[in-house]
């Protein structure tokens, strides 16, 4: 079996509300191995986005254990977490989140600035990634000059530019039409074939079907965890 990338045990997250502590996640246990393609599903308020933010080290759990490639995330300080987000994790958002005043090339190269890569190499690597997502000719365009689907491709290129071992995508097709969504999912499948571990959040079964493993969340806990093959069989 492939080595573990993510190992989660007894993970809980609660928010302080005026009516007392409100639990968003309760005792989640999950292991994801290298090379997996996981879709996390569930209705609004099921805790899947909170879970995704914790996976991406953007948010911290209230209780429980989260190990990334064997290291306990809770023991890392803010700088080490930043390094983890920079090197190990690539994050793709529903709203693309490109910086509006930068060319696509600069947007893709941005993570490399934070790990001290020289300018020439930053540009070269960004262009390589733009070729990979099929936008080589748009390197000098600004984000508002291209379509939503193209923007999401750029965001994926940015997430991949520092060669992460884990790609996290929070509703990556949520703002896209069905045709473009299929393109994006095809891209994810290609990336997964190349060995990148992918975890994506979605509430559409059609999208989730592209993943190899589907996990359903409800009321802050996992209610089902099945392989896509078993579901379709």
């Amino acid at each position: 079996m492939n080595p573990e990338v993510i190992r989660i045990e007894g993970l809980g997250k609660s928010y302080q509300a005026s009516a007392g502590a409100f639990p968003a996640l309760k005792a989640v246990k999950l292991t994801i191995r290298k090379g997996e393609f996981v879709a996390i599903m569930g209705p609004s308020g099921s805790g899947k986005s909170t879970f995704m933010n914790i996976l991406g080290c953007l948010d911290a759990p209230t209780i429980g254990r989260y190990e990334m490639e064997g290291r306990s995330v809770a023991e890392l300080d803010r700088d080490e977490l930043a390094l983890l987000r920079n090197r190990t994790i690539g994050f793709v958002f529903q709203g693309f989140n490109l910086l509006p005043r930068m060319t696509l090339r600069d947007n893709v190269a941005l993570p490399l600035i934070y790990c001290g890569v020289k300018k020439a190499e930053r540009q070269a690597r960004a262009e390589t990634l733009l070729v990979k997502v099929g936008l080589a000719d748009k390197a000098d365009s600004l984000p508002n000059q291209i379509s939503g689907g193209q923007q999401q491709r750029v965001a994926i290129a940015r997430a991949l530019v520092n060669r992460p071992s884990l790609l996290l995508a929070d509703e990556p097709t949520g703002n896209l039409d069905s045709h473009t969504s299929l393109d994006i999912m095809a891209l994810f499948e290609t990336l997964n074939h190349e060995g990148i571990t992918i975890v994506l959040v979605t509430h559409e079964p059609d999208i989730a079907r592209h993943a190899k493993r589907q996990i359903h969340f409800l009321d802050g806990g996992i209610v089902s965890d099945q392989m896509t093959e078993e579901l379709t069989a």
Partner: protein
Amino acid sequence: MTLAMLGEAWRAMGANKMRTILTMLGMVIGVGAVVLMMAIGQGAQYAIGQTISAMGSNLFVLLSGSSQTGGVRTGSGSALTLTVADADAIAELPGVQASAPIHPGSAQVVYGPNNWNTAIIGSTPAYLDARAWPVVSGAAFTASDVRSATRVALIGQTTAQNLFGDEDPVGRTLRIRQSPFTVLGVLGSKGQGMDGRDQDDSLIIPLTTAQRNVFGTQFPGTVRMVMVQAASQEIMPQVEKSMTELLRQRHRLREGQEADFYLRNLTAVADSAAESTRVMSMLLGAIASVSLLVGGIGIMNIMLVSVTERTREIGIRMAIGARERDILLQFLLEAVIISVVGCFIGLLLGIGGAWLTQLLTDTMVIISGSSVLVAFGVAATVGIFFGYYPAQKAARLNPIEALRYP
């Protein structure tokens, strides 16, 4: 890394040009005002220093007292109570560098077809020492000229210009009230005195010659005034005291009897002028610094707005791996660039303003390297100081909250 950051700061500033320019304007005005005010203040200090050193340093003037005849009091110097012997006795006191009896007056001076009315100072060589007045060509007269009352003169620059034009006055003979005088030397230029009079419009002759041949005097051996120079500023109070004691003794004044002479400390007048100039230039600098402070607060204000506006961008940057110090540096750089560029423009404006002031008002201005350095240092400090809080606010943001910012 830092270079990339600089580029980003530049881009962020360019995205909101009007705001950046207006923020910069605060720094421009502040630095410009500081540089201009310091230039004017230093110019004034320099000018007053020139006047003081031209006057001579650590000087006292002794004036003969007033006479009182049947209830009518005449002005000081009218009763000739001071004598040449007094002046000589004062010269012997410890701490006294020079003591020169003076007989002042004015007369019509003639050379060839030219004539000119000028101040005539009858004195001894000690007068030139006390006033620190050099002879720039020819030579000064000596004590023996004073003893034998020779008809020699030292000529001031203005007088020389008016009588001799381009001719060299040394060795020529001019006439004062029909008596011929040989010009021994030309005095250096002193410029305007504290009272605004042209000090170079004068002629110095031996005291005895002035008294016997030019003005005449009823009481030989008496003088209207004596100029005394102390060896240093610190001992001036002691010199003043011992001089007063000596004169009271020599003039046989009883305890409690009114002195028959007046003693004036010229340096005190000059010092108060210098002090008030110094205070004025400090005040100018302080007022100008307030505008620099206001400029700094403007930067802080705009940076706070900028951080709030770009909360989401900060969240994105954090999500892709920016550390706290990366965000801090990014916003700090922006603040420092604004203040340093503003400072540079302000510097040019201040120097230009100072130059214009000198040109239009004839006020002396001095732009010293130190004032330029101070302005630059202050600008960088203001940028860092007022930029730090907003930058830190940005760097401390929680990534997930920043990302959720609308």
